[in-house]
């Protein structure tokens, strides 16, 4: 009798232990499923966020197979923008105000660029490197870049009015535009990668931006841009000028309006 009771008790205890273990495993599975679902949602959100900085196809490839070095030759229009006289400004205001001014500037410029199908590749100090036709095929990339430059001019004028109301100094902008072939891809180290374009097309745009001061204008474009540009844009031809690293003097045009 005692033996039978012991067997029953032992069986019950075993059954209870098994049920407990099963319930615990079920709870753990549910927790794992929940975490996986949350991670998957987070991945989807990250994927969407990264698609603003690199082609979606590339983002998916990176997620699926990891970062691989590959590039593609593309016809792109490059916009290089820089603040004129930024160094004296940076010495005349306190750091917090300077950062606030800069962030407001970047926000407005970013809006003007993305509204015209461009994407910001890099911020270099107060400089902006923006690309048109790099993320996706865009037969209207040059007109888009010129319109973005005009929109940046308009945004800066509005921003300067706000800064003036606060008694802060005005900002001045120089923009260089160039069109040509470059290598588009993920560039950088494993810790810091960015989707960008490399090649002469970028350096020419940067140097043309540098010419804006010499010519006393805010937006300058090269003859390669001029050739692809809608003739309804109003331009003023400027005398050819020597650019560092370019053997022949480069003809440029000031972009006045559309």
């Amino acid at each position: 009798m005692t033996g039978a009771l012991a067997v029953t008790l032992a069986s019950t205890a075993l059954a209870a232990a098994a049920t407990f273990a099963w319930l615990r495993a079920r709870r753990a599975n549910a927790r794992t499923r929940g975490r996986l679902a949350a991670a998957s949602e987070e991945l989807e959100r990250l994927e969407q966020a990264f698609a603003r900085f690199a082609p979606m196809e590339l983002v998916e490839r990176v997620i699926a197979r990891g970062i691989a070095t590959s590039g593609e030759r593309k016809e792109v229009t490059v916009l290089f923008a820089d603040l004129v006289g930024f160094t004296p400004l940076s010495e005349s205001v306190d750091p917090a105000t300077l950062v606030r001014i800069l962030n407001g500037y970047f926000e407005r410029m970013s809006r003007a660029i993305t509204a015209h199908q461009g994407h910001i590749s890099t911020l270099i100090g107060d400089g902006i490197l923006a690309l048109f036709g790099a993320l996706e095929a865009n037969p209207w990339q040059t007109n888009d870049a010129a319109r973005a430059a005009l929109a940046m001019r308009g945004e800066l004028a509005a921003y300067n009015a706000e800064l003036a109301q606060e008694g802060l100094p005005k900002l001045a902008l120089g923009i260089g535009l160039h069109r040509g072939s470059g290598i588009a891809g993920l560039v950088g180290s494993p810790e810091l990668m960015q989707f960008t374009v490399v090649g002469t097309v970028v350096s020419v745009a940067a140097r043309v931006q540098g010419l804006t001061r010499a010519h006393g204008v805010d937006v300058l474009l090269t003859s390669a841009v001029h050739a692809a540009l809608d003739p309804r844009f109003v331009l003023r031809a400027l005398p050819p000028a020597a650019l560092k690293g370019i053997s022949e003097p480069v003809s440029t045009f000031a972009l006045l309006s559309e």
Partner: protein
Amino acid sequence: MLTAMASALADVEWEACVLEPRRDRELEAFVRSRFGAVPSAVPYFTRVPWVVRSMPVLGPDAPLLTLDSLLPDLIGLVVSQDNSCRYCFGVQRMLLRVHGLPDSRIRKLEQGFIDAEIEPRFRAALDFARRLSRASPLSAASDLTPLRDAGWSPPEIRELAYATAFNVYMNRMMTTVAIPYAPVESLADSWLIRVMTPLLRYLNVRRARKAQALASARPTEPARGPWAYLLDALSGAPASHALRETLDAALESSVLSRRAKGLVFAVVARGLEAPHAAAAASALLGECGLAPEVLESALTHLGSSELNGVENALLSFARGTIRGRPMQLQQRARALLDRLSPEQLIEAVGVAALANLVTRLDVVVPGR
């Protein structure tokens, strides 16, 4: 879980609807006879009858003869999600529920079908659908190779492309004018749909069989008109007849000029670098008397002094429909109402959506 399921596109910004709804009992009866119900989007488009008719004509009236009935709805879900069309996404989730897919599986599909128990053959089809819809990079004949490798036959590939392009069409229509998504977004999770799923599934199967029988009995017509190349490529599939009917109706409508519509087709073809669609649009515009050099200039710069104000406005608008995100599309559509009447806007949206459908099908035309 239900809340999480409804949130897949919850972050997508969506403007107030650009159009006012207007009931039309005759059109609603036509739509009900094909869909079994009148989708909440229909009253927003009734001012231009061909646009309303196109939805069932290109959809249930053009049944896919070679594909498993679940696949087109799976394609609908991934394409609508990719295009951030909250309205179509809600509809597709409901359709997948009617197919009997559990919440967990639908959720996995929304998450990119990484682990969605999708067989490799279906996965190849869904990858193709996303690529064709996204058009970045641009579609190429090489996109068909993974499909062939996965065992899809040429007629099946044509229907896969059509199912994708049809979903792009519906996405553009609903997104551009910001059709309110609230009536459909939570439909899949409603108790009524859950209870009625077996009945809805039965009715869907019956309707599909009837449409297939009708389509099979329809005599093959010789292809004609600017898009004859495409109708020929789809020959034998009900989609060919549906496209012909819709393209004819769109061109015959007098709300916008034929030339304005041709320009919309031409811009989308230029943006997607689709040679057959571009040639068709050029031919149509040539019939309208537009000189090739004027067309080339208009397409290069999306504007020309030789075109009128409405035509110039439509060029930029059409360009925005190629890959635009909902907010951008909706803001452009609203801005267009300064120049266009609501009827003209509806027709412009319908034509642009049709141009996106037709142009994406270039990939299945031989000789691409």
